[in-house]
């Protein structure tokens, strides 16, 4: 490690890395942030992440209450426990942020992602793609004589696995929504 304590291969060249962390173990956390759906609110949230050198692994945002103009931002982030705590308290002090939930801490959450995959191929490869899609419970939402568009929903890991399998079978394009998550139970 250099004097700046930036790990080799790290893309985080932030002065925040000068700080000793209370624990070195990086954890992945899924945060749900309820915000006023007003102009610039997403910029405030992602600006906080880029400005302070935090990671965003996945981000989804949509209005969930049209009358109250509230949006739910779901962020998957990685960091040491101390960094995760900082992210939550820093999010909490943004004025249009109403609630910050750490779904990873609050109990096991249901996490789902949707992806669309375009697979181009003919003959055996095309048949194999269709067969695998069936195993993964992916739906065909568009078809031509030499292409399919599959729709698949599941955990990010499941989508990764499906995409890996489609790769040799002619995967040409993929669109992913990022994670949407809700805590289980009441």
């Amino acid at each position, binding site marked *: 490690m250099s*004097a*700046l304590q930036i790990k080799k291969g790290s893309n985080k060249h932030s002065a925040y890395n000068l700080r000793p962390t209370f624990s070195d173990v990086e954890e992945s956390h899924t945060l749900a942030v309820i915000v006023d759906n007003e102009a610039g609110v997403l910029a405030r949230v992602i600006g906080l992440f880029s400005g302070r050198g935090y990671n965003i692994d996945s981000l989804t945002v949509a209005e969930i209450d049209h009358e109250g103009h509230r949006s739910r931002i779901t962020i998957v982030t990685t960091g040491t426990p101390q960094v995760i705590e*900082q992210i939550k308290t820093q999010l*909490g*002090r943004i*004025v249009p942020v109403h609630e910050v939930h750490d779904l990873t801490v609050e109990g096991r959450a249901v996490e789902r992602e949707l992806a669309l995959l375009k697979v181009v191929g003919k003959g055996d490869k095309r048949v194999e793609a269709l067969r695998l899609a069936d195993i993964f419970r992916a739906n065909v939402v568009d078809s031509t004589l030499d292409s399919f568009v599959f729709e698949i929903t599941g955990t990010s890991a499941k989508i990764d696995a499906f995409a890996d399998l489609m790769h040799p079978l002619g995967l040409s394009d993929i669109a992913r929504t990022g994670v949407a998550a809700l805590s289980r139970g009441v």
Partner: protein
Amino acid sequence: MTRQMTGAKMVVQALRDQGVDVVFGYPGGAVLPIYDEVFQQNDIRHILVRHEQGAVHAAEGYARATGKPGVVLVTSGPGATNAVTGLTDALMDSIPIVVLTGQVPTFMIGSDAFQEADTVGITRPCTKHNWLVKDTAKLSTVIHEAFHVATAGRPGPVLIDIPKDVQFASAEYTPPQKVRVSHYQPQVKGDMEAITELVAALETAKRPVFYTGGGVINSGPAASQLLRELVEATGIPITSTLMGLGAYPASGQHWLGMLGMHGLYEANMAMHDCDLMINVGARFDDRITGRLDAFSPGSVKAHIDIDPSSINKVIKADIPIVGDVAHVLEDLLKVWKSRGRKVNREALAKWSAKIDTWRKVDCLAFKQTGRVIKPQHALTRLEALTKKYDRYICTEVGQHQMWAAQYLTFEDPNRWMTSGGLGTMGYGFPASIGAQMAHPESLVINVAGEASWLMNMQEMGTAVQFRLPVKQFILNNERLGMVRQWQELLHGERYSHSWSEALPDFVKLAEAFGAKGIKCDDAADLDDAIMEMINHDGPVIFDCLVEKHENCFPMIPSGKAHNEMLMGEASTKDAIGSKGAVMV
């Protein structure tokens, strides 16, 4: 009663309803309708600055000298971008200010119009919150909300961007009392369990110390009062950050002086050796902690802060208390009294004796010999000659700032205006204008270095125009002193661009602005010259030529711990390792 009015009139009405009496600003195309309304009223005084950065610093000075939010009015584009440094400064130091910027009309936004800038985009990371108001009907509620956000919780700067067509259009005005309650309501009461835990720790601590910061000042006069009561009653020694000076009086018997990089030996040693550290409204800034893994290794750390994100940010708090300083101290005192006002008297007496041995080191000692004025001597004399006055001190940034913090004393809060977090050269002069506006009869002195002072020297025009008798006490070493000091310690005495040639003749400069200039380069004349400055009824530039190569000590070199202070020239050789050299 519904009141229809234009957006421009609404701005003035809303400011009036928020109790604003002074606005610092600079007109331009996109704020002309508001300036037209400013012209047609007498409740709010407008101070025309000479640069928008000056307006924001002046508002900061006003805010810090009064505890009220400062207000700024500037135009779009360059007006707004010039305000950015001031906004960042206010954000770092948690100073409540409300900045109103003009914007090109809504139908031209995004067209790269003349003097258009994405003001809310640019200022998003340097404000607590900002708004672009596209509908006149919402303007008054946004302004009232802005004052609430600026002052509630941890204070900070806010900005409202108002397109010109919104200023011209009419809508109904909403007075403050009719604005629905904002959801932004930071917690002010501390958790009683944590407070009780702190009281228990305080009762048994053998070597406790209060480490206080700007949060005490921001919390208001009651917080300082409660802090004094707590310190006097418990007999626990107290140190403060640069931002918190004045919360506890420098003449108080438990005062250790400022801590940190250029803090006092006794303060830093007490922090290093304490067994209970009670952080009241400070944030473990890197200027304070020095080397983190060697920071106060044996202490239990309690941290009182209104901002939850300050807690555990840098230093793990053993007893975290989220709340407003005044509220928490009030509860703390109540609990402590109800439990029988206990402290470990015997251990405290030993602790006090130990601190006295550190005090005896006399870390601020210096020798004034001959006629060349030492900067420390200049400030010692300034202190002696102005102490009895109703005095407000501002500073620029650099060596002079640290010397001012070391050699001047503060008995009350809101008397000391300095750029702490951002370290903005050019802060002090406009801030002194703001402080003088707030306290027209008081003695307002800006302790400056010549390099910092030149950064906003155009504000001399403001001081003269508005007859603000601010005293610019410039410690002139013809160097960027702090940069030079670091180059000496870190870069083999290669003084790269830390020396300014072609400095102005400050006396003639003062005269060119229609003010008074005084030059002093002889220690024998210093007292008379300072008295002449004080007694002159008007702004003064005091050019105090001082020893050019004086270094600021004590100093914790970067990358070192509190008990590894440099005390003077002899100890500086190879004091900073390569690991320390990467830090600022």
